[in-house]
């Protein structure tokens, strides 16, 4: 009976008793969700354009963040370092297209997946050789990003603390999604990209360059990775451990679908908020630490009802 009370009643009593804390939990989940969504966005961009599940997206986040901080450590001013980091991601995109994607055109998906796994380890090694293995502090204030926090008092003991960097992360993520939506829908390259996503052969037949499109989409994923690296790096630090955190995007992709940009955002928020509420209000019943697998449980529950994910394209195969 106690067990049932602890599962079904007590968490909701806690939520009502401390609404400020509930708001804080939801906010933290929202921010985590935004960051998961940013990582998932990188996966979606590449999957949409080339059908490749880019296992290297996590290390691209680390590589982009390290490039930025590493250049600044060498004395490059923050904004110039940011521009150069964008340039590095562009060079990386061209190299990936030329040396990985192009030679593997027409190969089975599993080969492309293995190629991205190989890229992951190559980039880990390259990053460690260039920047060393030590974690680096993100240059948050040098980039003009806000630091500090604002606290809102609620009732006698209630307190909600909002970190300015978290607010900035949410705003940047929204701007990025908006920018990508405009890019995909309103520009010629964006329309070409959608054409490639729909049918490679048809796109080729109307004169669209697959190589160019792939380089652009890997570059866009690189920009998303840089934004993620900056935001996540500001919350902890920029280290190779971030690469593991990037795998949190997997349940987001399962939930939101591999091809949907809105799916990545909504999926990220559901996973972020869901895992935080689950961990805080139900986690202690099983000794805590449920966050790492709860995200997958949430995604699997959704999968039972929508195997293609919330916004993924329904696959209909005629026999």
């Amino acid at each position, binding site marked *: 009976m106690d067990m049932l009370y602890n599962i079904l009643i007590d968490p909701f009593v806690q939520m009502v008793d401390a609404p400020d*804390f509930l708001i804080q939990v939801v906010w933290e989940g929202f*921010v985590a969700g935004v960051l998961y969504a940013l990582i998932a966005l990188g996966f979606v961009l590449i999957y949409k354009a080339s059908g490749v599940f880019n296992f290297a997206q996590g290390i691209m986040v680390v590589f982009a963040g390290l490039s930025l901080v590493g250049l600044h450590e060498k004395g490059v001013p923050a904004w110039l370092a940011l521009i150069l980091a964008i340039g590095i991601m562009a060079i990386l995109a061209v190299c990936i297209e030329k040396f990985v994607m192009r030679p593997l055109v027409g190969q089975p998906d599993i080969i492309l997946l293995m190629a991205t796994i190989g890229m992951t380890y190559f980039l880990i090694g390259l990053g*460690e050789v260039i920047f*060393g*293995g030590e974690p680096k502090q993100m240059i948050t204030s040098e980039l003009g990003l806000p630091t500090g926090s604002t606290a809102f008092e609620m009732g006698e003991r209630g307190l909600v603390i909002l970190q300015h960097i978290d607010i900035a992360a949410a705003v940047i993520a929204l701007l990025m999604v908006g920018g990508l939506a405009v890019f995909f829908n309103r520009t010629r390259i964006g329309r070409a990209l959608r054409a490639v996503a729909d049918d490679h052969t048809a796109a080729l037949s109307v004169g669209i360059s697959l190589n160019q499109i792939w380089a652009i989409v890997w570059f866009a994923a690189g920009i998303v990775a840089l934004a993620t690296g900056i935001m996540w790096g500001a919350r*902890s630090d920029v280290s190779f451990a971030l690469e*593991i*955190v990037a795998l949190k995007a997997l349940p987001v992709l399962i939930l939101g679908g591999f091809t949907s940009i809105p799916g990545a955002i909504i999926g990220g928020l559901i996973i972020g908020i869901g895992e935080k509420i689950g*961990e805080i209000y139900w986690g202690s019943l099983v000794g805590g630490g449920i966050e790492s697998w709860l995200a997958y449980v949430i995604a699997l529950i959704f999968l039972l009802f929508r195997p293609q994910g919330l916004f993924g394209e329904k696959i209909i195969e005629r026999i």
Partner: protein
Amino acid sequence: MRMRTLLAGSVLVGLAASFAAPALAEDSVYIQLPTYRTGPYAGSGIHIANGMSDYLAMINERDGGVNGVKIAFDECETGYDTQKGVECYEQAKAKNTLVFNPWSTGITLQVIPKSSVDKIPVLSMAYGLSAAADGNTFPWVFNPPDTYWDGLSAIIKYIGDQEGGMEGLKGKKIGYIFLDAGYGREPIPLLDNLAQKYGFEVLQYPVPGKEMQNQSSQWLSIRRDRPDYVVMWGWGAMNPTAVKEAVKNRFDMSKFIGVWWAGGDEDARAGGAGAKGYKSVSFNNVGADYPALQDIKKLVVDAGKSHTPANTVGENLYNRGVVNAVYMVEAIRIAQEMTGKKVINAEDMRVGLENLKIDEARLEAIGLKGMIAPIEITCANHSGHHSLFIQEWDGEKWTPATDWFSPMTEEVTPILMQASKDYATSNAPWPTREDACPAN
């Protein structure tokens, strides 16, 4: 005829050279240094690795080795991965290492059963299996100067002091945030035991390895539970993230105390000005003014024979790497004296470690007086349960917050001896020690 003579002469010279080579090799001993300069734990591992290798390099440069015997050493990258660590152990064994320093509790637990079979001493300085301090059961394992249980008991003792005595702990809530791995779980049995004895409540906050940089849930729980103190058993990327989260959640930093491995300079620096007041228990002081460290700077770092950035010499984890190397060098020296051999082997090294004694006079002689406390290991006690102190982050550097004080040895020893017995029982048939330790 001349040509034949020339050929014969060449062969003879070649033969002489081939005999001469082992003679040269006999003037050196080999130690493998398992390290992790890569991966999620590199932030801590790099400083330790630098400290260890720089001290050994300095001994070779300044003194020509230990009593004329050079220390040949190389690194084996484990990435803090247990499987890779075991592979490093096998490589070290093949190359006749004098001693194996796992630098991971997970790796230590794996190699403990192998060490007695392979007759290679394991030096797990202030980490690993606490029960291994029992030299009667674990003749091949050494964990000076203190075990994790000593560290935890010292932290609880310090908290007791802050509360006006151990009776002041009654009714208090102590949060325990830990890396959810063998390392972080190691002190839990003692923590539960002390909680029962002193009447405080323990709240556990495990941090999975994959979530080290994503601790908002743990810190939200801490905010909700409002523990009076939080004790941290973190490593690698977990530490700076935890300090940042504590600052973010406005936790009273003077009541946030880490184990010695959560006391890196970069760990605290990550929290910015808000991290001021964060504490960690320690067994070495910081600073580069000690003569031995000055020699390292002059002969190794400034001479370009090291990976170490000059400004990190003297930081907390760097100095701790030096301490580990000091233990090894002193054990070699003692083993040479006790066995009468210049070039010792791993079995001799065990003798050296088991008789390791570094008193004030010796500390002065090696140029580290004041950086560490004197230590003594005995046949029965492979840790020594030495004095510790609490250090505090002043916003820029670590400063001592207390004098040296003893851990709660009287609390730890009976539990430790029982744990040692339990280990031997559950791993039966556990080899018995060939040469029993003297009764006292």
